[in-house]
């Protein structure tokens, strides 16, 4: 490449205001010039003459530069660069927000059938509470409740009897499992997470069981939570020494208060 061509390219690039494009323009002009020189050499021109002719064919550098400047408009160029950085930054933000943990919650939760097919769910296999408990009663909520787009229901409740012995004295322990379900059509929603620690249960003996832990007893313990985009399930348990009565009522005292009654029926 002669120094003449170098001067010609510099004159062209001086006219291009969008500096980040100058290197690419230089490469393209050089490639074009070199191709032309090689073509001329192929048909018999000597190298020096081929360079002169090729350079002459490139035209007036200022004219070419102005034309290129019109194509490589600075505002368009900067916008393009900004959009490239924008894509990169958005990728970084997405990866930082850890989108993969959400995939876990896409697995559908139970909607029908037995919510405790393997026995008293909160105890692992091999424990006496799990292996020796007998389901003596079952029930479902007598009604559903509609609030702010959610449907609250009790699709499953059961009472388990577990025979125990302490100091040579045999006694029975009763475990009640209550599953509260909340359905909605807002896949982006996480369900009414705040209510699980505010629910109360009451039975016909006027015993009140609260989700706020009380060492003295009478606890309605929130033990498990499952959710998919359209349904949230909260599992609660009550442990007591007296057999449950005929019914249990789950209630929420805030806003527009509601309650759902479960009538126990003998488990088959």
């Amino acid at each position: 490449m002669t120094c003449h061509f170098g001067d010609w390219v510099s004159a062209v690039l001086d006219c291009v205001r969008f500096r980040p494009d100058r290197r690419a323009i230089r490469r393209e002009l050089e490639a074009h010039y070199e191709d032309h020189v090689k073509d001329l050499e192929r048909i018999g021109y000597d190298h020096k003459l081929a360079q002169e002719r090729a350079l002459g064919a490139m035209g007036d550098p200022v004219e070419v530069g102005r034309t290129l400047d019109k194509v490589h408009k600075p505002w368009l160029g900067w916008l393009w660069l900004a959009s490239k950085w924008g894509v990169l930054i958005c990728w970084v933000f997405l990866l930082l927000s850890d989108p993969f943990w959400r995939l876990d919650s896409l697995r559908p939760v139970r909607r029908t059938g037995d919510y405790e097919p393997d026995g008293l769910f909160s105890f692992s296999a091999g424990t006496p509470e799990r292996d020796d408990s007998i389901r003596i009663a079952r029930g479902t909520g007598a009604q559903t409740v509609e609030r702010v787009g959610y449907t609250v229901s009790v699709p499953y409740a059961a009472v388990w009897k577990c025979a125990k012995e302490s100091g040579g004295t045999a006694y029975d322990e009763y475990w009640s499992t209550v599953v509260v379900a909340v359905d909605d059509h807002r896949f982006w929603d996480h369900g009414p997470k705040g209510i699980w620690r505010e629910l109360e249960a009451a039975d016909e003996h006027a015993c009140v069981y609260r989700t706020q832990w009380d060492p003295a007893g009478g606890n309605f313990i929130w033990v498990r939570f499952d959710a998919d985009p359209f349904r949230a399930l909260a599992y609660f348990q009550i442990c007591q020494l007296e057999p449950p009565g005929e019914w249990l009522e789950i209630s929420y005292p805030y806003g527009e208060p509601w309650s759902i009654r479960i009538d126990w029926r003998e488990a088959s």
Partner: protein
Amino acid sequence: MRGFRLNRKQKILRNLLVCLLLAAATYAALGFPPYTVRGMLERTERRYLLSDLEPLLVKRERIDYSNKLLDTHETYLLVKTENTYIFTKYTRHFLAVKPGYGDKLKMGRDFLCAAQGGCLYLAGKFPDAASAIMQVTAEKTERYCDKDRNLIRTEQGPARTFTYQGERLGEELFEFRYMEEDGFPWALSDLPESEYHLGQAAYEWYSTYVEGSGGTGVHHADLPVTVTLYDGKGEVLDTLDFTISNYELFL
């Protein structure tokens, strides 16, 4: 054959569309965080099955944690619907917004008292109350744990009642300031106990000492509170009795 090539304008458009898609995916991955008070109210409504929440108090704080690159922004909301009052907070760190600790802060029917930033806020329907006085009683209760013998010994100290004049902030809200906003209760140096403010008493008077190990902590206690509401003539309208956690007063 040359492949399809986009010109610069088309590339910009493509990149902007990719940005939009990625931003939407990020927003979804973050759990659709609420950035505005309106958004926070809607989120609170859905979290607690409430409707038509009305803000009574909105307080914002910026916290510069030394171990975090960016500031943390906390928005405290005291809201009401019908006869339910909620005090909750949302914490924003960079793009993520999370509701308050333990999923909720405080919720009450008919009235609610919550502490934040050196003030006790009392929300409720007191239309005729022109003024209010709050009395909070703290009683020095120190616990000594003997781990070897599994014993806890309690030593009671003197009780002190702190009295505060309320300032009406709105139709359903009184504010009682019990310490300066930056009156952090720890690092008390040689201040005599008689000069403690309520925040200091709530922290210092409920210490738990683990004997032998030198470990200390602050145990939980519910402090009795009495609020007396007065009408414009200075006559007593009503008296409210409830308790407040000592943790609320200094955390």
